[in-house]
């Protein structure tokens, strides 16, 4: 069914592309100078130049903007293509200032090496569009200026410099971000120790709806399609609504192509540890303000290897033959098609994407580890049972229309998450053996929409006001039971005011109200006296409906306290509504093998959060300190009751309970340029969290960690435009002994990684090459956040990664 559906959607998308020209007859072609012929070719010298493009809030190059270097010493105006160039610049610290009538002023310190440097200046950058200006630089790890919550932009280059089998494994290189892995190919996002339903993942402003509450559920996203994304740490509830407690990750749409061009990009990746091979191919055609982009990505990986030949679980010694972890192979296939147009009325795009994953689970992660299941196992690239097959289809439409004093954003999205878990049936009890292998099937349909009006009240004040709505339906199948059928829908309204105060202070304050309804269907399971007779039906989940009303407010300030110091503070509240499992479960969770019991009287989980931030940017030193403190008035968790389940195979009953809790910590990032070519950076993170009622630590809290990076970027003399980077990193992770009840403690470990990246100019683009060795010394260690930690499984051993990116661009 989904094949035909995908086809019809692709057809629909192409149709939109073809009919768009008639809609945008008045469209202005941006790159043709207003009344003055063709854009001339700019010549950039190899050394001593600072050049770039200034874009407006819609990503259109901004002609006529004033660009100053070092306050008045050099000043130029951007040309018709929004371009500017300064040449003969000495290496060292420089200040770049961009101003344009109606956009205010942006200033930014840059440290230039001897080679020419390209910068892109966006006079708008984010979906929130609260920041005046974002100067984005490749590899810049500093938070976006002028935000009261710490926000970082990550680009393709960062992902390529920190390669992983999943997107989250790359992002985990950022301070305060972790990846919760289920083997090598499935990862969940963790921001400041908050995961599952406590973080939001969105694409183009549309929140991704999979089964994020599930411990073995990963993020369904094609990592190769991500060109840039933003990460907000702290309460992002104003814009994202429920669940944005730890923060939000929002994939930003790829930059809109400029001019008439045809572009392709080929990305190739190989990983030794799980014998991964990946290909991602993009092709983009753009003409007269319209574009069509297609990306196909596939990756296939075998079982991964661990530096161990056995592990111990419950006194059993379980062998790991040749260090190969059985049934951890998988395959992802993704396709993304987007089409859009822009003109003097605004910009619109439609993106259809499909992500399919077929990934194995280590036998014993469903149930209990058992040596007998591993005896006959042979190394494979194709997962056998237990495994999951995931399909995530998305159709997203994003439109921004210029309106008096601002612009209007209209986002509409439809998502279908189809999850199937396949396992050989087994019976604990008297019933007959199911005659199929479909253990669990969940089909989740979500329609979401958002309308936001972003406008200037007067020169210094901006208001963002919006509504969003969501409708969701879940249906289940399979012989197992995890989650009942349910419907959920909700409406939200919010308003955020941003104003510029005195002394370079910018303030932000907002309110949001949400209303949501959950309607859960009852589920009864058969209780058998023998394999032929059903004695009665037992209620696993009651018929139940409830509604939640939530109100939240947020206020923050960021202060540009001088050329080299920025301070920020934010006080806010975020929340999440209990999900259907937490409200109604009653039975054994087949993944954790625990008897979990829901509670229909649960309230919305609410956190009150204080976030501080300090950024120091001196000539050679960059320092970011970001402490946070959260108080939960009713933190929702699975509390062990001590009382045994009557159900076969299960231990004690775990009850979804609420408690007061505290969650605090922070991150430190410091980078120091020893010379123009040599940089040392240190990242530290720390989290402390406790249930205030019983004084137990909260579960899944990442241990303190310190990562040091030394990078060397030498000039390649015969080829000065080439960009080379050698890096060596040491990551020391402390042990985690502050654990929740029945959560295992994890020992400390230190890992070494080495990397080399090169960016070599070829035609209009740069060919990128990467070579990395992860876990250089093949260290045996356990990751506290790993899904397989519970099974005492060690993490992957040494891994050699090779990446290659070949872009080609043809312009008319």
């Amino acid at each position: 069914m989904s094949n035909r559906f995908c086809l019809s959607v692709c057809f629909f998308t192409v149709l939109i592309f073809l009919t768009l020209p008639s809609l945008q007859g008045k469209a202005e072609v941006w790159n043709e100078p207003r009344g003055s012929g063709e854009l001339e070719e700019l010549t950039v010298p190899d050394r001593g130049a600072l050049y770039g493009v200034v874009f407006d809030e819609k990503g259109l190059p901004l002609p006529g903007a004033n660009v100053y270097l070092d306050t008045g010493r050099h000043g130029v105006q951007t040309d018709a293509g929004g371009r500017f160039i300064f040449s003969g610049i000495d290496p060292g610290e420089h200040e770049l200032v961009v101003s344009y009538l109606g956009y205010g002023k942006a200033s930014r310190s840059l440290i230039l090496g001897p080679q020419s440097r390209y910068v892109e200046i966006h006079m708008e950058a984010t979906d929130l569009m609260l920041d005046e200006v974002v100067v984005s630089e490749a590899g810049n790890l500093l938070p976006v200026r002028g935000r009261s919550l710490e926000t970082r932009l990550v680009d393709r280059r960062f992902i390529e410099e920190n390669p992983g089998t999943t997107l989250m494994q790359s992002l985990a290189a950022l301070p305060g971000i972790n990846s919760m892995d289920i083997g090598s190919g499935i990862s969940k996002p963790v921001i400041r120790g908050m995961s599952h339903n406590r973080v939001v993942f969105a694409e183009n402003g549309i929140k991704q709806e999979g089964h994020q509450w599930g411990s073995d559920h990963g993020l369904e996203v094609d990592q190769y399609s991500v060109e840039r994304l933003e990460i907000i740490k702290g309460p992002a509830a104003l814009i994202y609504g429920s669940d944005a407690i730890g923060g939000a990750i929002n994939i930003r749409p790829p930059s809109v192509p400029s001019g008439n061009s045809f572009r392709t990009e080929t990305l190739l990746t190989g990983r030794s540890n799980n014998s991964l091979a990946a290909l991602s191919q993009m092709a983009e055609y753009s003409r007269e303000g319209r574009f069509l982009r297609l990306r196909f990505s596939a990756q296939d990986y075998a079982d991964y290897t661990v530096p161990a030949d056995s592990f111990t679980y419950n006194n059993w010694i379980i062998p790991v033959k040749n260090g190969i972890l059985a049934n951890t192979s998988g395959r992802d296939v993704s396709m993304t098609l987007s089409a859009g147009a822009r003109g003097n009325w605004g910009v619109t795009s439609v993106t259809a994407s499909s992500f399919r994953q077929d990934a194995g689970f280590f036998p014993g992660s469903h149930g209990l580890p058992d040596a007998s299941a591993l005896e006959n196992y042979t190394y494979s690239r194709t997962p056998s049972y237990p495994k999951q097959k995931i399909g995530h289809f998305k159709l997203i439409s994003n439109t921004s229309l210029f309106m008096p004093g601002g612009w209007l954003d209209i986002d509409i999205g439809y998502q279908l998450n189809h999850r199937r878990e396949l396992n050989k049936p087994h019976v604990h009890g008297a019933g007959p053996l199911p005659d199929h292998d479909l253990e669990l099937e969940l089909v989740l349909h979500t329609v979401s929409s958002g309308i936001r009006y972003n406008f200037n009240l007067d020169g210094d004040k901006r208001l963002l006001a919006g509504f969003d709505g969501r409708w969701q339906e879940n249906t289940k199948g399979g012989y197992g039971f995890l989650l009942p059928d349910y419907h959920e829908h909700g409406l939200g309204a919010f308003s955020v005011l941003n104003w510029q105060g005195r002394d370079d202070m910018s303030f932000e304050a907002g309110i949001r109200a949400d209303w949501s309804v959950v309607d859960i269907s009852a589920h009864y399971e058969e209780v058998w006296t023998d394999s032929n007779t059903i004695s009665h039906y037992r209620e696993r989940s009651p018929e139940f409906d409830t509604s939640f009303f939530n109100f939240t407010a947020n206020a923050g300030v960021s202060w540009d306290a001088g050329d080299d110091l920025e301070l920020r503070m934010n006080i806010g509240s975020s929340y999440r509504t209990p999900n259907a499992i937490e409200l109604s479960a009653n039975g054994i969770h087949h993944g954790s093998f625990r008897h979990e019991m829901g509670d229909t009287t649960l309230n919305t989980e609410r956190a009150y959060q204080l976030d501080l931030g300090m950024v120091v940017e001196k000539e050679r030193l960059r320092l970011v300190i970001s402490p946070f403190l959260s108080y939960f008035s009713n933190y929702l968790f699975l509390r062990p009751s001590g009382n045994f389940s009557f159900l076969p195979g299960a231990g004690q009953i775990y009850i979804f309970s609420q408690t007061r809790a505290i969650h605090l910590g922070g991150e430190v990032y410091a980078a120091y340029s020893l010379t123009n070519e040599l940089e040392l950076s240190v990242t530290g993170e720390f989290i402390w969290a406790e249930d205030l009622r019983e004084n137990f630590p909260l579960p899944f809290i990442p241990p303190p960690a310190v990562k040091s990076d030394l990078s060397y970027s030498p000039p390649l003399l015969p080829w000065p435009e080439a960009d080379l980077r050698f890096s060596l990193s040491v990551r020391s992770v402390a042990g985690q002994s502050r654990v929740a009840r029945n959560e295992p403690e994890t020992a400390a470990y230190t890992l070494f990684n080495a990397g080399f990246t090169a960016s070599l100019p070829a035609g209009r683009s740069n060919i990128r090459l990467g070579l990395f060795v992860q876990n250089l010394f093949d260290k045996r260690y356990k990751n506290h956040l790993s899904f397989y930690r519970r099974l005492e499984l060690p993490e992957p051993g040494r891994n050699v990664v090779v990446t290659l990116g070949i872009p080609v661009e043809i312009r008319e």
Partner: protein
Amino acid sequence: MKLKPILYLFVLFLGFGITGCSDDEIDTEKPTMTVYSPGAEQVFRPGQNLNFIAEFSDNVGLNAFKIDIHYGGDHDHKKHEEEDEKWHYVHTGELSGRSEEVSMEIDIPGEIKTGEYHFMIFLTDVSGNESIAAITINIEH
């Protein structure tokens, strides 16, 4: 300099984070058990008595135990074999104090499917810490 108070606040905040909440005495230590009988891979006959003898202990206080005996032969790859009656036994008992020895007799029914069985023991303490032990036994004619 006007920035100093803010920097102090920062340090104070971090200091609070690291030292402000000292560790209280919390019990995350699991209860322990020593099972004297049945032994691993011990063979029983249908209709026979099985002796369960175990010593349980905990640093704070024991709460309860559960015995769950179920057929373990599903792990071979014969999926749709003839369905004999598999034996399934569940027993829970309360415990108290820091240490307790449990000795009990379990009757194995006469007419059951023979083969490998899993003898599982779950043990909890008063704080909700749980230990699990699993012993493979064989029931054969």
